[in-house]
């Protein structure tokens, strides 16, 4: 028992150690890394990618992928901002935006399951569709929140730990439990590990996939509200390429792109690692292009480590 516990702990520990090491290196270069301000900033910056990465983890464990998640986030940001300009109450806006995100996810899942096509292709298409839809709806310009609206500030800023960070932590716990201690969670793993086996064992594979994409869409909707809260606007051109950060976070966190493996905690640690690199580079005056090189290298290293880990097992 202990040997296996140790192994699964190591899977999580890997990204965590990487995070500490990277944090430590940047900290040695600039002690500002250890101030409360910077730490809070890193946590807050992680909320959007982290929240969406939780949903992406479910999709990737189930053997799928969603390239459209960045577009869904931007579109949902636009939707949320528009609803704010209609003077709807915050709870209504949360529910409506999350539902809208879920609908986008349902479309992805429905097309993948219904047409039996690769999710890579489907979501490559819907990535453009959702992105375009946001621009069409707003004529390409951002929807600004009215100046007197301050209700969304505490989600991504303000004094102390922003609400969004708490929300992300709660979601990690919730979905961590879901994956491990529910039937649905086991079904997600079974579908991703071997779809034929899942079918043979009477798992409703289509339903599992549909649900997973829908949940991921809902979480992307939530991330959309966070991006609106952060920038006080709904910008249809925001979160470009964010899907790659999200997928990278999930993979750094120990998920396998061939399905059947992954943890939400790992994914959020992966997201934290990426934010840490960006913040650390900024603090140390490393130019942005180099930040990209370093982030990319970390992703490649994570995948190599993943390969080595699997060869041993």
């Amino acid at each position: 028992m202990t040997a296996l516990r140790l192994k699964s702990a190591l899977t999580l520990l890997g990204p965590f150690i990487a995070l500490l090491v990277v944090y430590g290196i940047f900290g040695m270069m600039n002690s500002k890394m250890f101030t409360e301000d910077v730490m809070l900033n890193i946590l807050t910056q992680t909320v959007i990618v982290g929240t969406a990465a939780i949903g992406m983890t479910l999709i990737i464990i189930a053997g799928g992928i969603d390239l459209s998640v960045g577009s869904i986030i931007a579109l949902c940001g636009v939707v949320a901002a528009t609803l704010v300009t209609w003077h709807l109450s915050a709870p209504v806006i949360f529910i409506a935006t999350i539902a809208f995100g879920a609908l986008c996810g349902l479309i992805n899942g429905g097309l993948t399951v219904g047409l039996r096509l690769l999710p890579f292709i489907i979501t490559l298409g819907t990535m453009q569709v959702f992105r375009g839809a946001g621009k069409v709806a707003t004529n390409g310009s951002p929807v600004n929140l009215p100046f007197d609206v301050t209700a969304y500030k505490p989600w991504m800023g303000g004094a102390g730990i922003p609400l969004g960070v708490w929300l992300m932590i709660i979601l990690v716990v919730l979905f961590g439990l879901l994956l491990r201690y529910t039937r649905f969670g086991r079904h997600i793993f079974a579908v991703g590990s071997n779809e034929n086996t899942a079918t043979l064992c009477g798992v409703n594979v289509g339903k599992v996939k549909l649900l997973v994409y829908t949940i991921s869409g809902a979480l992307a909707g939530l991330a959309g509200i966070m991006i609106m809260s952060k920038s006080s606007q709904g910008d249809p051109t925001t979160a470009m390429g964010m899907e790659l950060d999200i997928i990278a976070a999930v993979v750094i966190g120990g998920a396998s792109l061939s399905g059947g493996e992954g943890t939400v905690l790992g994914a959020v640690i992966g997201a934290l690692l990426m934010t840490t690199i960006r913040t650390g580079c900024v603090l140390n005056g490393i130019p942005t292009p180099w930040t990209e090189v370093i982030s990319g290298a970390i992703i490649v290293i994570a995948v190599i480590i993943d390969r080595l880990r699997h060869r041993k097992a």
Partner: protein
Amino acid sequence: MPPIPPRLVMRGIRKTFGSTIALGRVDLEVLPGEVHALVGENGAGKSTLMKILSGAHLPDGGEMEVDGKPYRPHNPLDARAAGVGMIYQELSIAPHLTVEENIVLGMEPMKGLFVDRKAMRARTLEALAHFDHPDIRPETLAGNLSVSALQLVEIGRSLAMGCKLLVFDEPTSSLAQKDIERLFTLIDRLKAQGISIIYISHFLEEVKRLASRLTVLRDGSVIGTRDVSTVTPEEVVALMVGRDVKDLYPRTAHQPGEKLLEIRSLSGRKKPTEVNLDLHRGEVVGIAGLVGSGRTEFLRALFGLDPMSGGEALVRGKNGAANPRMRWQEGLGFLSENRKEEGLALNLSIADNITLTCLERFGKAGTLSPRKQNAATAVWIERLGIKCQDPSQSVGALSGGNQQKTAFARLLEHDVDVLLLDEPTRGIDIAAKARIYEAINEVVTDSIRPRAVIIISSYLPELFGVCDRIAVMSQGKLTRAVPVEKLTPHDVMLVATGKAADLP
């Protein structure tokens, strides 16, 4: 004249890895020109022993002699130089080099700074003379050859270095039937030339065909060496698993009871056509037939994995929807012939794989208790003898036999009434086979609720060993099921190959 020394003597070989004893004082002797089989369950120590022989591992104690001279290889090249060559399951051939370059690889004849291509060619031709295979020419790129040809190149490599002892590790696992026969002929010829061979195999039939003696390893020790000509399969299994196995196919009297399954004119998309079959509690019905005759398609259509194009299947008199979920609910369970691609989710745990069809029993309202899953799984690990660390180990890490036991345990854990087994013992070691036969017999003779079994197999002794009745599938058509007492394997083969229309 002194007596001819044995080709190989291993005395008191010991090897430990950390706290686990992989080998404890193993003795083995192989004579010149002898084919000596090494059998044992996975994890018995066969590969460790062979790695020591080939220099990949150093032993912690003991000594070895080759042709009477002390032998202590530090790496595989040492071993080959001393005349010991390994033919591994996974061939170590460089696909981008030619046949001759592969054969002399690591021991290239040199002329000054350059490879002596003339010597290389001569040495290759000499080695290739052992097997006249039309595709294998010195200048062919290895990457263009078939697996069986590559195996020959690998053998040629050892022969070119003058090896007098070859170790074959499961050499037939990736070969087609005709290549297997060709390999056996080659082994016979090498034997006649005085070359000694250690042959590792799960398949007792191969051992019987090739070897003169066999040595059984269990838990890192030699249990015994027997003459192949006199040993019985039951004796070999008993040695391998360490307990008395009276009969490879145990059989307590079966008592057919109520009708569980009534199949009427069932047809699949292409195959099978119009299958009729009744199945009762407490009986085992075998389905013989050639691969591709529609045997597998029949069970898949019955279980709802492939569409049914006509007919019906009544379970306890009721005609339910043909889909896997419904079938499990009705108390049917299916064991796939293809455990890696369909039967098991390899990176999930043993517990998840065994309990996947009935997770609702392990928690209320959609929740799940891994502890309860593991507890239930531990029972099957114990009862079927699944060799593993614990229930949460991933199935992919297990040996084939233990994977198959896991897939089989799923049906037992779900507690189905009807077990549909497609090639349940293909490619697994004989000890694991014996366990599965035992388990089949146990569920069929259960005193409270005898189960029913349909078993597909290409191996006729198995069908005749476990079945009460046998039906034969030929070109999509299934004969009636005839009691085994009234059948001979010959009758079955005649129908299977289309030379007879029906069983007598």
